[in-house]
């Protein structure tokens, strides 16, 4: 297994070019990226790689970028990260929640290398974190889902029960419920970020249970392909626009746009102003985009969704605004109260009305 991974990393990475080149001032800044899926997943890893390409375009020969794709979370990630740091990367972006501890561990061994971890909450002097407020986009999706469902059942494919995914489920449900009090949500945990066959099976299981809207927090387009098989079932693009499935089943999408952030951070590293910050941008900052809402959605629903997106962008509305109760009926947010970022970053409960338990 070890040999396989090493070979794979070596083949995929194209990093074997410069071994231990001395860090001279005129050397380009070497920026590394670690992806959890293949860059061709057309979802999460694809979008991060688009950010990497934007960095290359912006800075030309002032930077050199390297990447490793399909790096498993866990112990393998630590090896891949160490390898990248030893090969002279100056700034490394690790782009999945499961890389959190490996990033912290490797960063402690390479104090001169800067690390940035996406979607985690652990920081160090040379480890910054960044994330996007996907729940803002999911509020918009939830509104469309609640208006569009005829069976009043919407299905949600979760990857892992981590705060970011739970934010998405809660946000979707809250906003679907707001426009359709009868709506129910079924959650299926796939325990993978990327396994098209399993994602398709999960979507199929949901559809067999009578769900007619599928939302997914996994990385491939397989749930949309499955939804396309059953007339009347709609879904949303996730991470990427996934326009190939428009106008239906894909009726809109939430799009991750990492390019502005990556450019900003590489600039900071070049200028020497880089610090271990924590960034959490949303629709307003351009990190979360709402893909075009297709004509399969009635005009008034489209207008409603766009108005919601606009109010989130200008900060006049926060998707987690009270009154909201926890699943057990206890009060979470009072009337008009807004959830603080600390609570959201560690969110581990469903809101009132969602059935089922979060796997602990």
């Amino acid at each position, binding site marked *: 297994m070890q040999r396989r991974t090493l070979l794979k990393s070596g*083949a995929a990475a194209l990093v074997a070019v410069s071994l231990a080149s001395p860090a001279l001032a005129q050397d380009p800044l070497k920026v590394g990226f670690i992806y959890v899926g293949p860059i061709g997943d*057309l979802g999460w890893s694809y979008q991060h790689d688009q950010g990497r390409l934007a960095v290359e375009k912006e800075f030309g020969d002032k930077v050199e970028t390297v990447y490793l794709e399909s790096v498993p979370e866990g112990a393998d990630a630590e090896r891949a990260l160490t390898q990248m740091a030893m090969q002279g990367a100056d700034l490394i972006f690790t782009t999945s929640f499961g890389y959190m501890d490996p990033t912290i561990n490797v960063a402690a061994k390479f104090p001169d290398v800067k690390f940035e971890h996406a979607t985690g909450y652990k920081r160090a002097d040379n480890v910054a974190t960044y994330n996007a407020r996907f729940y803002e986009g999911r509020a918009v999706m939830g509104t469309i889902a609640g208006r569009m469902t005829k069976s009043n059942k919407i299905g949600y494919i979760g990857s892992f029960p981590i705060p970011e995914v739970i934010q998405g489920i809660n946000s979707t449900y809250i906003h679907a419920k707001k426009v359709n009090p009868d709506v129910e949500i079924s*959650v299926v*945990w796939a325990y993978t970020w990327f396994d*098209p066959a399993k994602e*398709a099976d999960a979507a*199929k299981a*949901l559809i067999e249970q009578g769900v007619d809207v599928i939302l997914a927090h996994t990385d491939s387009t397989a749930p949309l392909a499955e939804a396309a098989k059953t007339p009347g079932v709609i879904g949303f693009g996730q991470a990427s626009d996934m326009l*190939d499935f428009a106008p239906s089943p894909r009726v809109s999408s939430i799009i991750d746009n990492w390019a502005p952030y990556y450019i900003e951070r590489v600039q900071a590293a070049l200028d020497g102003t880089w610090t271990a910050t924590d960034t959490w941008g949303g629709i307003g900052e351009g990190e979360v985009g709402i893909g075009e809402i297709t004509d399969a959605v009635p005009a008034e629903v489209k207008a409603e969704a766009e108005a919601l997106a606009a109010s989130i962008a200008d900060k006049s509305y926060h998707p987690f605004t009270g009154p909201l109760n926890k699943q057990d009926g206890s009060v979470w947010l009072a009337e008009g109260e807004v959830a603080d970022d600390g609570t959201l970053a560690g969110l581990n409960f469903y809101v009132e009305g969602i059935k089922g338990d979060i*796997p602990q």
Partner: protein
Amino acid sequence: MMGSIDPILLIASLMVASTPILLAAIGELVVEKAGVLNLGVEGMMIVGAIAGFAAAVESGSPLLGFVGAAVAGAALSLIFAFLTQVLLSNQVATGLALTLFGIGFSALIGQGYTGVRPPPTPKMDFGPLSDIPVIGPMLLRHDPMVYVSILIIAAVWAFLKFTRAGLVLRAVGESHDAAHALGYKVVRLRVLAIAFGGACAGLGGAYLSLVRVPQWTEGMTAGAGWIALAIVVFASWRPWRVLAGAYLFGGVTVLQLNLQAAGVAIPVQYLSMAPYVMTILVLVLISADRRRAAQNAPASLGRVFHASS
């Protein structure tokens, strides 16, 4: 408790979900029966997935897609056959390299095919038979490949059990030196077995990209080839047990997703690990009879053969 899960739909789903690993596993069974261990199943599957997808999209015919996938899988496996049978390279390392090559190569040729929709594979038409209650919707409304995969199992079983060629193939796998001394062409036979294994793995991959998902995504086999390898051992190199093992694995996977969707209050972790627990349990049970289990692995499995030895 399972009130809202329709067992008929469940069985229909599990047959579809199991078909890719079933096809890959029965091919690998023949390869291993000939005494060759080809760990490149994952690579051959993914190449079959993109080759079949491309052939189906370009020709508009799912049938040509499956033919193309079988040819591509067999072609890839011939690289392995050349390296291990002619150049006598180590089978384990070569198989792993084949997987890496397949994953990379498929990503390369697949670049123009992301987001494309393949032509739909039609279901079999059994006429009024498919309206029989229970049996019809459960067993008689699938696409042809589901039945083809079962036919391949039956054919392999009959070939190994009843034919002279099957006996020779088993002899080559048990003792290549003895088979060679008797005048059988060990290398030629093994190359044919490897090509058959590659063709089956290619079909399995194409089933993923043309029927089960259906679309092309990089890395879409996501470990199915490794499960197929495990199922061959699990089945102790017996064709019908390959069928049982694949359906069991596919069935538990589909069942756990359905249980979740139906809101059954079983902790998800138990459901997710269920396929693996079942696999381990059955492995323990079938290997409890140690003598028989040990006897059944081909004795020359993985050993290099050269006529001079």
